[in-house]
């Protein structure tokens, strides 16, 4: 019999555990929207963030603040490098999406392999203990970590929204996302927007890895093998171009995975994501419509292309 406490608990845990997935999805969707790249290199960025924080916390026994700063610095630097020396070169060459896919995938793989050489393949966490103090909130058990994670996620989402809507740099990003050629005519430098979106995604990625690393154990290949595909699915579900909807989609996916425990054993839970991918591609290839929080949609998939939208 399904008691309401169980359902509430599953909802709460599902949402809390999806907090970092939301951050990863938003990062991915943002780069797709602005830079027009399916950034599979995100797995590599995730590992860099984790590694930097890991080194500070576990090898040098530094404080959390130093660790997070190091993580941010390393990831932002890496992200800017990827944009400057990777995407920009391909963009200049008018490369097809094929090259971007190969570049980003292989880059992630390279970073994972280097990570395995440096850190080995034993599972690790950022903090010694990943069990946080818990308390009862009505019928459910609530973790301090859960609250912090959700609060951080909401705060970051709000911050991003404010940046995109109110700051000139953010508005430029939106303009470039809609039509880079046109934006350039108006005096906006697209490259600056591209760099900015990569930097913003780096921030989301770092914070997400902080949450992930304080919650569960990972190995270097975990971001690539597990979390990247979830971000991709969330992005597709939301529809290409809808950044915040991708975040909500990530929460929805998290809830779905959380509830799937009622039906399948935990080892099958990752299949939920693949199943959703299959269904989405078959039935809603352009995303689930209607309720999205829509920033003016870009719609085009080809990087830097000013080609008109084609139906087929």
């Amino acid at each position, binding site marked *: 019999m399904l008691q309401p406490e169980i359902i509430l608990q599953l909802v709460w845990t599902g949402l809390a555990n999806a907090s970092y997935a939301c951050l990863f999805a938003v990062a991915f969707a943002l780069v797709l929207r602005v830079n027009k790249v*399916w950034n599979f290199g995100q797995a590599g960025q995730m590992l860099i963030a984790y590694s930097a924080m890991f080194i500070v916390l576990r090898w040098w026994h530094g404080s959390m603040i130093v660790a997070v700063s190091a993580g941010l610095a390393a990831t932002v630097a890496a992200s800017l490098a990827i944009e400057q020396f990777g995407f920009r*070169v391909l963009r200049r*060459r008018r*490369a*097809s*999406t*094929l*090259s971007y*896919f*190969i*570049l980003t*995938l*292989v*880059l992630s*793989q*390279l970073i*994972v*392999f*280097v990570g*395995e*050489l440096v850190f*080995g*393949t034993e599972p690790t966490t950022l903090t010694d203990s990943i069990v946080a103090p818990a308390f009862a909130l009505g019928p459910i058990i609530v973790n301090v970590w859960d609250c912090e994670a959700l609060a951080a996620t909401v705060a970051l989402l709000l911050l991003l929204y404010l940046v995109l809507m109110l700051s000139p740099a953010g508005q430029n990003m939106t303009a470039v996302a809609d039509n880079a050629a046109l934006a350039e005519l108006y005096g906006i430098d697209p490259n600056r927007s591209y760099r900015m979106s990569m930097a913003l995604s780096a921030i989301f990625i770092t914070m997400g890895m902080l949450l992930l690393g304080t919650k569960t154990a990972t190995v270097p290949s975990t971001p*690539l*093998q597990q979390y*990247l*595909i979830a971000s*991709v*699915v969330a992005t*597709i579900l939301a529809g290409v171009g809808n950044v915040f909807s991708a975040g909500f989609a990530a929460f929805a996916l998290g809830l779905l995975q959380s509830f799937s425990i009622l039906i399948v054993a935990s*080892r*099958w839970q*990752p*299949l939920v*994501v*693949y*199943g959703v*991918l*299959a269904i989405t*591609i*078959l039935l809603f*290839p*352009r995303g689930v419509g209607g309720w999205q929080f829509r920033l003016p949609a870009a719609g085009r*998939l080809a990087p830097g292309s000013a080609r008109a939208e*084609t139906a087929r």
Partner: protein
Amino acid sequence: MTYLLNVVILIEINCLLAIGFNLILGYGGLLSVAHPMFYAMGAYASALLTLRLGIPIWAAIPSAAIVAAVASIGLSLSALRVSGDYLVIVSLGAQLGVLLVFKNIELTGAASGLGGIPSAFDGAARAPIHAVLLAVVVLAVTLAVRRLMRGAYGRAITAMRNDEEAFAALGRNPRRIKIAIFAAGCGLAGLAGGFYAHYFQFVTPEQFDLFGTTALLTMVVVGGTATVAGPLVGAALMTALPQAIGFLDLPVAAMAPLQGTVFTSLVLLFLFVRPQGLLGGRRAGGGVEAWVGRPPISP
């Protein structure tokens, strides 16, 4: 001696994989990261057909190839409805998902894999016989690809890669061609899997993970995409390289990441510095970008 022959056989199996991958990426212009998964499908299918259903090996291996080819159609049909880009994503999901299933169900031996797979030949001459047999298969496949690409089909693929819209406006169906090429490539992967299973007689899920895509990318990008001989050269080099560090079929802890680092660095290097690979022509851009294959000779 057997060790050397094992390397040769591994090279030959990798040739089949690389040729198939090149068909899809170099000629078809599609990126599928699920090639290792189809390789696994072929290996497991052939193994199970012989182990559980007692089907003779000479029938099981081609059947496994067909299974892989047919399965690929499901993938390509659904993904290409949207665009070639989605094939990357769908194949990623398939690669991760199917391997997860293989790792967890009893039928495939779960994480320990399948052992005791029957071999076609036994005795001392086993290795040389397999080496020769596979050499014949690789040669046949290479010649078939060459024949295909030198004729009107190759012409059609060139046109399709040059300008898909203009190609379609002539009444030719680009998607049908892509699906067919994808099926051929994945079928070859399945075939390779079958040969692997019955020679090395042992398969585990880890052998078929995402890293396989990187290895194949290296072989094809380094050898030269959209060339007939490129994948062969690439396969030979990239199989011999790790062997030079004295490493057989099961990866050792630090060797794998080292090998991976070398492979990925090579791909990135070639992608930026010499995109047409070792054998590709010097036409504009080359490699995965512009169409580099030699245009077929007209009558």
